[in-house]
């Protein structure tokens, strides 16, 4: 495979929009302290002020600047979601491929344990765990990552079982290669394209999951801002016709769509590549 000279050439318009929006979100999250006009927790106005030149998106239920909180919220939401997805992926894909390579009893034991975990609805499972444990960032990442890894495990195992019976894996085995080489050098590179496509989807699920937890009060704790908890804080405003709750909700939706546009494009590109290889 030769890398194309310019990977952004021939990029479809939908993917381009997704890419631009996602980049904007990432920039906003990274540079939040410099971009944000006000601090995270400072009361700078009245309750639920409407948007003005001073407060671009108005203020929230405690008179804090909504735009600033949205920026800081992007930071929290995306960091936790990204870390949880990364954890879910490393854990899920390595265990999944390992199960496929080991086979037999080890595979049965791991797969049935995962089935058991998956049979409990994730939200309820997370609520139970988080009501006992403190809702710190690390605990949140661990809980979300481990729960999400069950989904990644299933995909990784299914893909790896197919690759595992290919002649080139058998050739490596006949050479006497150890499991580490077989997992990381023979199977993983070939399993990567379906997994990468799944990555974008999983990241969005993580954002939604975190938002749900925060909305229920078990996620990110105040005064830290995160999009889910911002919806929760401002939800009563809707009754009075104040759109403050809709703005973080809209941000969640926009992020979900733009990341998905990019993920779709990556998926199409990698399958194209495969077609080019076999043909």
């Amino acid at each position, binding site marked *: 495979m030769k890398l194309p000279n310019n990977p952004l050439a021939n990029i479809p318009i939908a993917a381009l929009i997704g890419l631009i929006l996602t980049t904007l979100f990432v920039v906003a999250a990274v540079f939040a302290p410099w971009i944000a006009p006000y601090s995270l927790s400072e009361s700078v106005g009245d309750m639920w002020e409407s948007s003005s030149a001073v407060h671009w998106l108005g203020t929230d239920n405690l008179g804090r600047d909504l735009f600033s909180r949205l920026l800081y919220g992007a930071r929290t939401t995306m960091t936790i979601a990204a870390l949880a997805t990364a954890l879910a992926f490393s854990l899920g894909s390595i265990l999944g491929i390992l199960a496929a390579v080991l086979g037999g009893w080890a595979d049965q034991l791991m797969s049935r344990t995962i089935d058991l975990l998956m049979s409990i609805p994730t939200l309820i499972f997370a609520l139970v765990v988080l009501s006992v444990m403190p809702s710190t960032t690390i605990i949140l990442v661990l809980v979300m990552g481990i729960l999400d890894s069950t989904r990644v495990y299933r995909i990784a195992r299914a893909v790896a079982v197919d690759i595992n019976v290919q002649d080139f894996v058998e050739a490596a085995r006949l*050479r006497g290669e150890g499991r580490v080489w077989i997992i990381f050098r023979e199977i993983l590179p070939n399993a990567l394209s379906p997994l990468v496509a799944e990555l974008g989807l999983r990241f969005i699920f993580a954002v939604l999951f975190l938002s749900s937890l925060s909305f229920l009060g078990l996620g990110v704790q105040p005064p830290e801002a995160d999009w889910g908890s911002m919806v929760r804080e401002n939800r009563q405003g809707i009754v009075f016709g104040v759109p403050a709750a809709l703005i973080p909700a809209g941000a969640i939706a926009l992020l979900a769509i733009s990341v998905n546009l990019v993920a779709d494009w990556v998926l199409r590109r990698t399958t194209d590549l495969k077609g080019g290889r076999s043909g």
Partner: protein
Amino acid sequence: MADQLLEIADLRIGATVYPPGEKPRDVTLVDGVSLTLEKGKVLGLIGESGAGKSTIGLSAAGYGRGGVRITGGTITVNGEDILANGQSGLRRLRGKTVCYVAQSAAAAFNPAHRLMDQVVEATLAHGVLDRASAEARAVELFAKLGLPDPEHFGQRYPHQVSGGQLQRAMTAMALCSEPDLIIFDEPTTALDVTTQIDVLAAIKDAIHDTGVGALYITHDLAVVAQVADHILVLRNGEAVEYGPTRDIIEQPKEDYTRALVSVRSIDHHARQPESQPLLDVDAVSARYSADLPPVLNQVSVQLSAGQTLAVVGESGSGKSTLARCITGLLPIESGDIRFAGQSLPKALKSRDKETLRQLQMVYQMADVAMNPRHTVATIIGRPLTFYFGLKGAARRKRVLELLDAIELGPEYYDRYPAELSGGQKQRVCIARALAAEPKLIICDEVTSALDPLVADGILKLLLRLQESAGVAYLFITHDLATVRAISDSIAVMLQGEVVRYGTHEQVLTAPFDDYTDLLLRSVPQMKLGWLEEAIDGRKMTGQDQ
């Protein structure tokens, strides 16, 4: 000319390819090919993969597979330009005037319908016959094609009949609507040699009796010589040579045709085995599961260092299982395998690195035997690092030496398998096996997936490497021509047992046992009239039953 059935003039066929990350571009698949076919005659189209033979064949039905476009020229069937009347004209043509027999009948039949319904489908759709007479004709054709119990054969489902029978059923399907032209696309390529000969004879008789014209597409010149009146040799989408079958076989004019005719005439002197064998397989039995019958039954063969043992048999004879037992992928049930004087541990896991190094394997399908995400440098270099600890410049130097040994230049060092041709891939696989400096390489059908000329090159390479590296080969194949060309000793396998074993000379000299005789007779020979001789020979020995 009125009796011209098919006339193709200056045919050009193109397609658009979409290389990843590059601009789509147009490629020419067939460039200015012309041919004519008289009523009731057979024209053989022959060439390597990529020669455009199937593309030309399908164009006679006005069809382009998967984005392939006819970009120029005319195709005339029965004096009528088939491209002039658009899709509805083509629909009237296909299945009625022009029929198609595909390479893999197993994949071309719908597994959910009975054979009869599929055989008469096109006939009914075109309203050629009513159902009762169409079925009567189908039964007649089943009988003509030598299918068992023709009255009830059509009631079966595709999975209930063998591959050879299915191929004949497909021929019956094509003949049912009494077409003027049938396109046979490699109809016997996927079959065992002993089955191929039956199907070939059935097809030949059917063509002769019904007076249908045929395009016969194949890569095997010896096969097409048996059925065709004329032969068109193709290469890279262009016609190389065209003429009556006898002229092509006996007096080829072009170098390329000459190469095709003389393929597999490798000069090899069989050697006598030494007293101390390198590999000694002693009364080995194996099975895949305790409640299944054994796949290998008391198999005993020996192989001397630096020599070649060919294991030959049809699919299902257990020859590949023997390889799996020797490599340890399938632990043997009883018996003993001794390698270099020492008993090999049964399971792969309990073998040490040194044993693994001395015993390498080359696979049939080179494209799945190499990791598509590794470069040639990694594929060949990994055994060097793994067994000998070579790194950096030393490893690079050795990889380049190995590339040179397999007749590939240094420009292949950084390539991925997808950027190699079929023959080059197999060469890289051979280099990977050689990198371990083994005493024995097991070659599992290494040339079966390759075109004859490319396979020839691989066999010559293997023989040369044997001389320079002194490596022994266990050569598993179903192709007796290959066996004849390269082996020192031969084992013939049938249903998990060795039915004939000995030196090259012992095995290939009369008197033969029945099965070896059948196998030898079934290998297509590059001469006219071979098919009839072979069929007569089989009838005499009573093997046709």
